[in-house]
């Protein structure tokens, strides 16, 4: 396989982009662990890292995370094979339920963070 195999087709390219999005996301999460450790020293000595570069990086990571989540949840209709009362559940309904659960989970996490952060 030549190293340029992923440039051969559009599908290969977007597959590599999808896989690559996990890398900056992992770096951002590592930084989050550092921030949590720093916050452990107490509120008086803690100031969040807020440089313009970090904000831009965070926005890019957010977009990557949304893209990765979107592709993953869209594929749920292909992967999950459910039968209810002896009839197969349509893939579109499975995808919709996954996005619904995602929205609910995001709302709950946002509520908890905001509530305890006040």
């Amino acid at each position: 396989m030549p190293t340029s195999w992923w440039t051969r087709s559009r599908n290969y390219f977007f597959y590599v982009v999808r896989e690559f999005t996990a890398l900056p996301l992992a770096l951002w999460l590592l930084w989050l662990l550092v921030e949590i450790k720093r916050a452990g020293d107490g509120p008086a000595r803690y100031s969040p890292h807020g440089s313009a570069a970090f904000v831009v990086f965070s926005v890019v990571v957010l977009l990557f995370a949304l893209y990765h989540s979107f592709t993953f949840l869209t594929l749920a209709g292909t992967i999950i094979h459910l039968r209810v009362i002896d009839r197969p559940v349509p893939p579109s309904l499975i995808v919709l339920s996954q996005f619904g659960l995602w929205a609910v989970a995001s709302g709950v996490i946002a509520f908890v963070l905001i509530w305890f952060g006040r």
Partner: protein
Amino acid sequence: MPDKKVTIQATRFDPDHDEKPRLQSYEIPFSDESMVVLDALNYIKSHVDGSLSYRWSCRMGICGSCGMMVNGTPKLTCNAFLREYWPRPVVVEPLNNFPLIRDLVIDMDDFMHKLKSIKPWIIRKQEIPLGSGEHRQTNDQIDEFRQFSECINCMLCYAACPVYGLNNEFLGPAATALARRYNLDSRDQGLTQRLPVIADTEGVWECSFVGECSVVCPKGVDPAKAIQQTKLDTTMRFVLPFGNRE
């Protein structure tokens, strides 16, 4: 239009004389709009160069023998119409990701070995005597596996799969789709015999869901779906209480 011509660039490779494959160009008459790439190869072999080697058999998309790379995409050459490429040259190469034997002929031993390893036949714990009648199935039971039974072992999915290209220990799309076909068959009881192969690290877990196998399949089989569903099933067997029950 009797003067219409099409240029075919076919891979030539003689292991006794050539160090590496090369492309040879042939200009042949494009006399009929219904001509497919396989017709062009047959014309070359009959009228221009009888030494050109390639596999083919049925000419109707059933046998799966004539799979080749056509302008970089895995295709059954009996189903690739020249009119879709003309007036551009048509580049015909052997399927990607397989060792080359000669010209357009690839070595399919690895695939045959993998196919055999998933035991693509109905396994019964105890054979029922023929005299006791047939194994009856409902339409719903047939619909469970019908799609995966359409596979013709043409290996286009292996040529499209970069995971197999990077690691040929990977069981691959067609073998997994066929394993799923038998595992979903209500007459089959061979799941536990297939699990060591399909649930292995070189089995379904090697797949990172590129999805190109399903795009190139000429029979509409969805091997990527078979692989991802098998991942979920094997996980559920591991996680759920009594998940390993027969």
